[in-house]
């Protein structure tokens, strides 16, 4: 009987120490964001054309150039963080994103262009969330039942989900040439608030908030950390690890579905190859945000901040007027530098606090 008690205390101790570290990491990420912002604001001022505002520090750029494009990555990064905390990985999110958006577009295009908002918006929101969740549940079930490494499972489903989209959509783009999407959904997703289209950013913030509540304020979130910190100890302490895994993959699928919904509303179109390769940026956002690929560590706020760092660097290429062909090198190198800097800053902060 002593083993479960010991395991439980071990798991709880891990949870407590793992909560302290992310706060330090988030603080160091905020420092990096402020430094990047200050540097880019200077260059944005220097390189602005006469009579034009600062290229970086203006509301249009901060919302349209950074917050809106990053929203789909950050939403998925919250789900990816939950999976990574549980010691897993999900590389099928780009395909789930596309499949959810295609499913939603396929239903919406059957409605009249002037269909009522009361009918269109619930359908446009619920369908991608349901499809995304089902895809995630399928991933989770395969991981739990087959006991294959999640990388392999989600590599397989990444191709399967993309293939289902390709087979189901004859013209490969929805709405197809004979249909249009109801106008009310794109009006909703592109609604102007204070002169800016803030809806993708608001959905992103809502997802981060929901992710933070789940991870930090719920019993399920605590189990999530425990499974990733030490799966065996978690199992001995009575946690049904299979259920936890099912839940985290479902959450990851759900967030990919939400991201698909945001993208469909923003562009009023979804093609079968949409979001190809997005999974790498999503995982990069989560890892830069402090999620440990070994499991047991990460936060929803960290996912947001990590994605924001990458988005600012990507936007900085426009601000600094650098050639586009250098983008991959710059973003890749910057991710490494940001992760290294973050790790150093966290270590220093931890040292200065004398904590774990």
């Amino acid at each position: 009987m002593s083993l479960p008690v010991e395991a439980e205390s071990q798991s709880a101790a891990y949870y407590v120490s793992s909560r302290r570290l992310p706060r330090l990491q988030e603080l160091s990420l905020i420092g990096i964001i402020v430094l990047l912002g200050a540097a880019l604001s200077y260059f944005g001022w220097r390189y602005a054309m006469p009579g034009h505002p600062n290229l970086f520090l203006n509301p249009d750029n901060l919302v349209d150039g950074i917050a809106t494009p990053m929203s789909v990555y950050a939403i998925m990064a919250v789900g990816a963080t939950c999976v990574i905390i549980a010691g897993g990985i999900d590389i099928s999110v780009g395909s789930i994103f596309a499949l959810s958006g295609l499913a939603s577009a396929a239903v919406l295009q059957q409605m009249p262009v002037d269909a009522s908002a009361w009918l269109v918006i619930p359908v446009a929101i619920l369908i991608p969330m349901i499809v995304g969740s089902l895809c995630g549940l399928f991933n989770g079930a395969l991981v739990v039942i087959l006991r294959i490494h999640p990388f392999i499972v989600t590599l397989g489903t990444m191709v399967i989900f993309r293939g289902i989209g390709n087979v189901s959509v004859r013209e490969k783009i929805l709405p197809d040439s004979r249909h249009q999407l109801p106008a009310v959904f794109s009006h909703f997703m592109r609604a102007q608030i204070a002169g800016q289209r803030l809806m993708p950013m608001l959905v992103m913030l809502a997802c981060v908030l929901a992710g933070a509540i789940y991870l930090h304020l719920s019993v399920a979130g605590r189990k999530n950390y425990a499974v990733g910190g030490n799966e065996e100890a978690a199992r001995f302490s009575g946690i049904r690890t299979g259920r936890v895994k099912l839940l985290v993959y479902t959450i990851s699928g759900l967030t990919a579905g939400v991201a698909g919904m945001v993208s469909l509303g923003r562009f009023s179109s979804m093609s079968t190859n949409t979001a190809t390769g997005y999974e790498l940026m999503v995982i990069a956002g989560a890892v830069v945000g402090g999620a440990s690929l070994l499991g047991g560590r990460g936060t929803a706020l960290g996912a947001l901040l990590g994605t924001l760092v990458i988005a600012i660097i990507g936007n900085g290429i426009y601000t600094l007027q650098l050639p586009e062909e250098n983008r991959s090198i710059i973003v890749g190198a910057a991710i490494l530098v940001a992760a290294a800097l973050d790790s150093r800053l966290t270590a220093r902060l931890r040292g200065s606090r004398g904590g774990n």
Partner: protein
Amino acid sequence: MKRGWIAGIGVACLGTLLLVVSSCKKAAETNAGGAAEKIIIGIVAKSQSNAVFQAAHAGARDAGKELSAKLGKDIEIDIKTPTDEDPQAQADAIGALVREGARGIAVSCSNGAALKQPIDDAVDKGVVVVCFDSDSKGSKRMCYYGTDDRQCGINVMLQLAKAMNDEGTIAILGGNQSAPNLQGRIAGVREELKNHPKIKELKDGQGVFYHEEKPEKAAEAVGNAQNANPQITGWAMIGGWPLFAADALPWKGDAVKCVSVDALPPELTYLKSGQVEMLLAQDCYSWGHKSVELLIDKIVNNKSPESDRIIDPLTPVTAANADEWAQKWKNWLGK
């Protein structure tokens, strides 16, 4: 240490605020000064890695230089083509160009429907937009310059039928199955095929082979299809993707007839080996050159083109004129 860290963040925030104030001051000063006119033209093609768009970039740069000298303006060509095909990256690039102060943008749409809103937003902010190569139908763009995709498909099939003496079985190499311009070309091939009753599409109308638009993937698709279906006697390639790779075609000489769109330098060698009968060349250089001309004409002279679809006819390239065409490419890309 903790206090020092917080103070550091505070100083950085203060610095940012000071920069905002100073940037506002600078903008006001430059407004008053009335600097010389500069016209920024943005180019957003589908991807950096495709040589046809490198030719378009070269054309745009040349047009910028020529028109700067001719009109006495400072025309700057700002190329913001994404590394890989991604409509969201193209939308971001269009937004960045608008914020930067571009007065005209030429874009080749990876997904015309997805780019409709970003194009409309740019036009609403006073930016003139031209689509080249791949259109965004229904958007507020001024005009489209490029190939008529349906007609392109018809021409490919017409030339292939001639090469096959009007009989045999064909396969179609389709590229990215999500690209609307390629779907238009496939429709053109099938439309013309109806006029040649002794030529059949493989598997009773299921003879399109899609693939990632990379030379090795395209070559793999052709090789696998030909091995599995040796009855194929003709290939209608609506894009020349496999021909960028060496030894990409699994047949020798003219055992299988092939007509392909595009005639870039690596593709010309297949004409000489006889493995490809004819290449139908798109004037990729003019995608950039003509687009910049159209934009500047509108911005400087307020002159719109007569039609909102300007069609560039395809140039047939065979073994006979392959060298001449190769020289053209040297001139375009050597600049």
